[in-house]
């Protein structure tokens, strides 16, 4: 597949990197140095020029491309690029936007601006944060089939009542499937007799309700969070506060810039906006940040986020979630005591990756360290699963595949051995990276 990526910034290079081995990748950027840097490290065709310029796009041969990904830092540029690409050929266009305002328009008419798919980085990140903030032990949360199915990666803490139990003992929930266990960089596909250990990461797929129930089974002493503090009122911080307000929370939001703080206060009626430096210890004490259930750091850079969350943790905050722009830092953050590091780029990559699969998955979640993925597919007539009970078709699949959830006509069906999958059903599967290609084709 020929893929044209416009914008060789961090997101663009990242996508280029992951696609370069299996696809023909063309990268367009205005900055010749950026383009040069990329060609040295990856096998991509560089073109220097303006992505909104039709001449440049023709030079990149957009007309023959199957996919155009506009991932510059500028929303308008990305949208115009998609619009221009749309005129030149029939490539599938993906625009990355930061501000959700364009997403709003795009969602109304799914082909607005000539964009086939819009990835709103900041909104996706905020959604991820809100999902994590609501579940005290969650490391990663992703939703499928319009929120009907949720994938959650739970960390089993020391002393958890679940630690030491077998999967069969722990699984008291009807609509929940244990898809995989991550233990010491290894993936275990659990059976009923697999024992859970403290420190394990459990990937569960099921209804959002069962996720909450399992979360309180893992850590019964933790109530749902009440008091959430967001540090940094950029777009991610704002969207996080907005989504929390929608879910009935009354968060506090700390923003340093007075004008921005005023704007936020006007936009967020239920949020208490504090105009101060988030690393001002006096403020943190005065506002009893230590008593907060969750502190979310969404400041401008990783260092500030690290500092803010470490401060909060030291003051006694239960849970600290930090936004990490540099993907490599995620592990480092979690190693020094930050509970969850959320990477906007990973979130964006998940969204974009699904379009680069041979058959387009409806949704994709990438499990820590790229070891496995959770994918949503709509079942068609050629699928191995169609019109057969699961236990029968399971034999045809490679090892390392678990069917997590099935939905039919907007209702969840708990997958059992004798469940017969029909055409049009949505199936959420967990698959190890090694068998990904095979599974994608089989489904």
């Amino acid at each position, binding site marked *: 597949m020929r893929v044209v990526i416009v914008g060789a910034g961090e997101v663009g290079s990242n996508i280029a990197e992951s696609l370069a081995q299996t696809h023909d990748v063309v990268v367009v950027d205005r900055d010749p140095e950026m383009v040069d840097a990329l060609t040295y490290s990856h096998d991509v065709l560089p073109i220097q020029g303006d992505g909104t310029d039709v001449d440049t796009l023709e030079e990149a041969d957009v007309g023959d491309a199957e996919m155009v990904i506009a991932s510059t830092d500028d929303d308008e540029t990305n949208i115009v690029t998609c619009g221009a690409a749309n005129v030149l050929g029939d490539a599938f266009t993906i625009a990355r936007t930061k501000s959700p305002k364009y997403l709003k328009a795009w969602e109304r008419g799914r082909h607005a601006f000539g964009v086939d798919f819009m990835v709103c980085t900041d909104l996706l990140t905020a959604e991820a944060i809100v999902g994590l903030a609501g579940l005290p032990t969650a490391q990663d949360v992703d939703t499928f089939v319009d929120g009907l199915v949720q994938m959650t990666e739970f960390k089993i803490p020391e002393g958890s009542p679940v630690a030491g139990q077998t999967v069969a003992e722990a699984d008291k929930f009807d609509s929940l499937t244990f898809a995989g266990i991550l233990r010491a960089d290894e993936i275990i596909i659990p059976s009923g007799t697999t024992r859970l250990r403290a420190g394990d990461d459990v990937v569960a797929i099921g209804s959002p309700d069962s996720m909450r129930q399992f979360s309180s089974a893992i850590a019964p002493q933790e109530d749902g969070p009440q008091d959430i503090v967001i540090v940094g009122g950029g777009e991610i911080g704002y969207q996080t506060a907005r989504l929390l307000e929608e879910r009935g929370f009354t968060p506090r939001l700390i923003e340093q810039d007075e004008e921005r703080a005023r704007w936020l206060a006007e936009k967020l009626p239920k949020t*208490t906006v*504090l105009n101060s430096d988030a690393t001002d210890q006096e403020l943190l004490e*005065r506002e009893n940040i230590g008593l907060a259930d969750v502190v979310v750091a969404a400041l401008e850079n990783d260092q500030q986020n690290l500092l803010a969350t470490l401060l909060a943790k030291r003051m006694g905050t239960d849970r600290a979630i930090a936004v990490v722009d540099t993907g490599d830092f995620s592990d480092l953050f979690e190693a020094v005591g930050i509970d969850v590091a959320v990477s906007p780029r990973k979130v964006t990559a998940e969204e974009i990756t699904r379009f680069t699969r041979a058959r387009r998955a409806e949704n994709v979640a990438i499990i820590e360290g790229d070891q496995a993925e959770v994918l949503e597919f709509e079942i068609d007539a050629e699928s191995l699963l169609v019109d057969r009970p699961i236990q029968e078709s399971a034999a045809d699949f490679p090892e390392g595949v678990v069917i997590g959830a099935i939905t039919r006509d907007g209702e969840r069906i708990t997958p059992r051995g004798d469940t017969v999958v029909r055409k049009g059903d949505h199936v959420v599967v967990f698959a190890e990276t090694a068998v990904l290609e095979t599974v994608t084709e089989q489904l």
Partner: protein
Amino acid sequence: MSRDRAGGLDRNVRVDWRTCLSLVGAVMVALAAPLVVTAGVAVASGDSAIPFLSTAGLTFAVGFAFSRYERGNMGAREGYLIVALTWLVIALVGAVPFVLAGNGTLSTPVNALFESTSGVTTTGATVVQDFDAHGPAVHLWRAILQWIGGLGILVIAVAVLSQLSVGGAQLMETESQTQDVNKLTPSIEQTARLLGWVYAALTGLMVGSWLLLGALGLAPNVTPFDAVTHAFTAVSTAGFSPRAGSLGAFSPAVQWVTIPFMFFGATNFVLLYYLTQGDPSRLLDSDEFRFYLGVVLGLTGLTAGFLVTSSEFSGVEPTVRHSLFQVVSILTTTGYATVDFNGWSPAAKHMLFLAMFSGGMAGSTTCSIKTLRWVVVVKSFRRDLFTEIHPDAIRPIRLSGQVVDESVVRDIYAYVLLSIVVFVLLTVFVVTDAARAGVGINEFDALGAAAATFLNIGPAFGDAGPYGDYAFFPRTTRVAFIVLMWVGRIEIVPVLVLLTPAYWRS
């Protein structure tokens, strides 16, 4: 644009007064129509039509002369002058028929001007002592002046004040519902007309409901004349009545039916418009409306309670009716009375005194400080308490979800303070002037009279009570009342602005 305006400007005066006079002239010309109608009523009732016809001729001639000034572009400065002049000129024209008719206390120029100003400012304070000394035409003219005053404030609020940064006008802009004034129709003129229709419809509805009560036998002494004159003065929250007993002259059924008209006359007309369009949610979700309703019910409850403890009335219905009627009447700045509340216990009377400072909703015909300002003051104060504990918190003031600009909050504080200061100064003046002239008046009655005139309510307490009049005040005090009724109606600021040299020169 500056070139257009230059035509109307003098070298030393920076206000295009010619444009202002031209527009005021148009208003004067229009005034001839109701005067001619009143003259017709005079003829029908056997009185002389001369006072009204000659006034009509006068206002038409002078107005026509004024209106021939060339009109330039209107700016904020012209807006202030037009607002101030319009009310002044209608008051002056309105006083002429009283003098020419020459009956009773209204025959002296000061009293005539007092009555006319009280009319057009929708105050309702009267100097009429013998109601039978005046024919139906004079009573109709008093009612018409008030109806014009109510319509005027609605139209001016939309058309002129919303363009100026006057306290009340900024309110109009910030109040979320009145922001819809601009969305209602794209043009200001159409919006003003729309609100005018709501006003007229409400008036018509009240006439109809009184006549219906009469037809049902529930209002034995209501004549069509009563229905019209009271509808004119209830919906405009003004309060003149041709009857010496005010609403006390009518049956309880009539009194009950009148309460909602005063209440809605003091409700934001834009919200009323949406109500007529079958959308009550805007009214019910309005912070200000809830506050307004709460204040009315709260004060009614307290008043009724005090009336019960002082055994003023026997029975639940009269107690509830009289307390609700009086509170609504005073709070909406109408000024009707069903009973002489002068005789009530001090506690109950002070509830009414308190009600004087509330007023109804902005964007209506009500006067006084208005609930919108009080809502903002209360919210702002609560915010101050919150920021005591969270000094870094930024907490915008919201009205029905819409953020109120901080400069508007400051203006509102300033306006409330200014109102109280003027009120206190006027009280002091009333007391000292009465002492100078040897007129006996006690402190509370002076406070009441100052509030009732400056806040455009009407009846006060003591001799100026609901069944009394203002004729006993020294002439200098009456002149002061005239000026302050005018100042109060147009929300103080336009007049104060006119008094600054900077307004005229730079």
